[in-house]
């Protein structure tokens, strides 16, 4: 049988199944094989807060979405073109997001009366016509996998567990992905368990052959490589990029990296990643709580290390008082908050941007700290490096506000050349007469970093207000006022790049200004609107405290400024109070990144206003 091959520009696929079905692994493998073909990619894993919710239920559904294209893309895609649903729960949880005409591949073996009733299907959607507007492919995934493995003498349970590889094989065939890398990956992963390896390998091949031979799948698709700047690429998530940025920062500053951390979703992977890299001299310390985590990092900084702590919102709340001490001690400290839905435990595995004001103001007293935010997964690398620059040059606490979306999402990363990374070497204070621990550098206003072990430099510091220059305890009213202003001036004076505005028409009236992980969705929406002939400008803030020096000017140039945020208007509040500018917010807190289409709509509302 000859099969048709249709070329496509882009596809969005969502793999969905039970938490135990291996959907994340399946998605990861498909991503790697797709990346190696040179497509641009963007991924979005979405998993439940419960580790293993009851099998086959809606709360237990885990999914992985991948958007890939023959051109540059900004987001993991809105509605999936293809849904792979491993059971009725996965179908039910995702069907609302599909558009008419989308392809649905389901494991029909799982659509038993019992499983259907678990999720409240009264009739079988595969048979009752409710999916008529979709391209439905019921495949007896489980039984074909088990049959394919019959000769291998594997337990039925192990055979069933390999069905995700069958699905991967089928999709690999459908989109003409190479098979070698997955085969190599499986060999490495299951090398020590030959039966499991054989089962996975056979299932993967069976899936591929199923596509090739059955009539159910008459069409396969090709997506040409995207035009990307030349270089060597790898797929990269925000959390790993952050960890790499910290290691790079440690290398380039020649400071020992010390991470004090307490596990919390979605930040733990930075701790996990860094703990693997001891050969870089990295010390990771899993503390008894978040206070100890940040305290240990600050203690390490005091000793001349690069002190870092990683957490999410609830943990940041606990670190508050110690960060205040860091403001007083004027020592380098990097605090990474991978934001998730709040308040309290909130939505632990979902994304949100609602810790901005906590980072800005969540301390007692006048307590300024630096706040910066990566705009994409791979930007986490650059932002971590810049946090090292700012923290060590100015001796201040620096917050990096990442979030669950870019922390777990991936995109291609052009691997940088190490020699092109900034030189971040620092100088500790050297032995000197009449040393004054709070005498400031006239340009940066930083105080000396005088570490223990430096002869003749013994001195005491602490959280009690200090006299200017000498650093001795001082309750003098004028001195306190002066020190508050000095600490503020130091942060306000930090050098950050000017805000760049992307306005090809050069006469847009509306500016869309974002911060953090909304960059991709905003850029995608604006690109689409410009293709429709709309004039709209885009700018994205990576530096929130201090703001870029030209921000006021930029805002003044536009009649309307729209600020989409995954919170109730926190950046908008800062902008309004700083610049007395009317800001239009677009605010959603659904635990999901913005979709391109909703942003297009929101921008159109302002354009037509």
């Amino acid at each position, binding site marked *: 049988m000859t099969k048709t091959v249709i070329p496509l520009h882009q596809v969005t696929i969502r793999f969905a199944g039970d938490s135990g079905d291996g959907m994340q692994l399946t998605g990861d493998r498909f991503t790697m094989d797709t990346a190696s073909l040179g497509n641009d990619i963007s991924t979005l894993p979405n998993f439940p807060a419960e580790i293993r919710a009851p099998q086959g239920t809606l709360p237990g559904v885990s999914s992985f979405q991948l958007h890939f294209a023959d051109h540059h893309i900004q987001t993991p895609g809105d509605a999936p073109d293809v849904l792979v649903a491993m059971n009725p729960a996965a179908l039910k949880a995702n069907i609302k997001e599909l558009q008419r005409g989308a392809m649905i591949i389901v494991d029909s073996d799982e659509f038993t009366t019992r499983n259907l009733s678990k999720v409240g299907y009264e009739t079988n959607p595969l048979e009752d016509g409710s999916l008529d507007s979709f391209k439905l492919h019921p495949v007896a995934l489980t039984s074909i996998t088990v049959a394919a493995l019959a000769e291998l003498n594997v337990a039925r349970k192990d055979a069933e567990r390999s069905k995700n590889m069958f699905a991967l094989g089928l999709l690999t065939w459908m989109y003409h992905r190479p098979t070698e890398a997955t085969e190599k990956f499986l060999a490495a992963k299951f090398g020590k368990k030959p039966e499991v390896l054989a089962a996975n390998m056979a299932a993967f091949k069976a899936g591929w052959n199923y596509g090739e031979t059955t009539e159910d799948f008459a069409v396969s698709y090709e997506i040409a490589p995207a035009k990307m700047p030349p270089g060597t690429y790898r797929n990269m998530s925000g959390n790993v990029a952050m960890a790499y940025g910290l*290691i790079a920062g440690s290398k380039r500053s020649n400071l020992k990296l010390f991470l004090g951390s307490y596990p919390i979703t979605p930040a733990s992977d930075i701790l996990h990643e860094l703990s693997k890299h001891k050969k870089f001299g990295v010390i990771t310390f899993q503390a008894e709580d978040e206070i100890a985590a940040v305290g240990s990092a600050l203690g390490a900084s005091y000793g001349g290390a690069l002190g870092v702590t990683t957490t999410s919102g609830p943990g940041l709340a606990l670190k508050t008082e110690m960060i205040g001490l860091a403001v007083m001690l004027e020592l380098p400290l990097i605090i990474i908050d991978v934001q998730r839905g709040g308040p309290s435990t909130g939505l632990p595995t979902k994304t949100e941007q609602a810790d901005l004001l906590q980072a800005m103001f969540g301390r007692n007293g006048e307590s300024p700290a630096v706040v910066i935010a990566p705009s994409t997964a791979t930007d986490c690398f650059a932002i971590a490096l810049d946090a090292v620059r700012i923290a060590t040059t100015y001796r201040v606490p620096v917050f990096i506000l990442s979030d669950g979306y870019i922390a777990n999402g991936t995109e291609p990363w052009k691997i940088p050349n190490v020699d092109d990374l900034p030189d971040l070497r620092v100088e500790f204070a050297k032995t000197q007469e009449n040393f004054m621990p709070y005498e400031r550098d006239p340009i940066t206003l930083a105080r000396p970093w005088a570490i223990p072990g430096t002869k003749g430099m013994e001195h005491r*510091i602490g959280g*009690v207000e200090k006299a200017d220059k000498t650093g001795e305890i001082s309750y003098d009213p004028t001195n306190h006022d002066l020190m508050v202003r000095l600490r503020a001036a130091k942060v306000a004076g930090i050098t950050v790049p000017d805000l760049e505005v992307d306005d090809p028409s050069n006469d847009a009236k509306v500016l869309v200004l974002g911060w953090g992980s909304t960059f991709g969705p905003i850029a995608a929406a604006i690109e689409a609107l410009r293709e429709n002939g709309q004039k709209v400008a885009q700018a994205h803030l990576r530096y929130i405290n201090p703001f870029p020096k030209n921000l006021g000017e930029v805002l003044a140039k536009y009649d309307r400024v729209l600020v989409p945020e995954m919170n109730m208007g926190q950046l908008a509040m800062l902008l309004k109070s700083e610049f007395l500018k009317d800001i239009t917010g677009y605010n959603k807190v659904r635990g999901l990144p913005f979709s391109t289409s909703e942003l297009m709509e929101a921008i159109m509302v302002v354009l037509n206003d």
Partner: protein
Amino acid sequence: MTDLVLTKKDFTSDQEVKWCPGCGDYSILSTVQGYLPELGVPRENVVFISGIGCSSRFPYYLETFGIHSVHGRAPTLATGLAISRPDLTVFVITGDGDSLSIGGNHLIHALRRNVNLKILLFNNRIYGLTKGQYSPTSEQGKITKSTPAGSLDTPFNPISLALGAEATFVARSIDSDRKHLTEMLRAASAHKGSALIEIYQNCPIFNDDAFQIVKDGETKSAAILQLVHGQPIKSATHGVIYKEGGLQVVPLDSVSESDLVIHNANTPDPTYAFALSRLSSSILEHVPVGVFRDVERAEYGGLVNDQVADAIKTQGAGDLSKLLAGTDTWVVK
């Protein structure tokens, strides 16, 4: 380190000491300043880290490095510093409220990890700095500003708590006993890992004479059970014997000298030191003073740094280019 001829004066900072007249903190400060030259560590390699409280002002008065940090959190900073700078000698200064109330979590974890910290717990059984509320070591029924009808909580026995937290070195001393406290500092410094010294400290303002029984010439010799390694455990009038699977204090004239327990601070089983710690009640009828426990266990910072060194030895020092390049890559021309 014989070329170091430092004196007590070298360890005395130029800051005016601001505790209340008669505060036990003065004598502790003087003893520590007097002991530090003997420690043989250059001043720049000594760091004192404290929390918040009257006692936590201590670092300001020492000519060493020091941090006056956050209430209860001194062990956290000290842990980060001690792990990343194993060349330093790090002391933690803390009060009974600082270490056993707000900072209880950090104290127990520093002890179980056996971080190389010398922790001096100034126990005045009261919140001094906040002007006299009861503390976690105040005896039940304590009348204070916050407990006019008497406190209801059962107090902590800091020694028992430390032992329960897997401490490898635990001792008790008294602010006014310079000689004894110096001995305890010496023993703590010789110990590798965490060492906790509980120091009974008088607060003449809010809890005067809380420890009078163990200080007063007339009562102290009977109350203090001296813990001396290799010696029978006894006071002037009482001794400690094994009884019914535990330890008991009995009048000396009711037993023969050979029945007394010979103190062995190196006893591996912590139940021995724990039983000793239970001999003191909050009315201080009998108070063991000295080193309860001194056993060897790998020091935490050493273990951490060994893992790093081992990774470098077996895998070679990290190569940043290689790390960034990874293994799963593709090339765009």
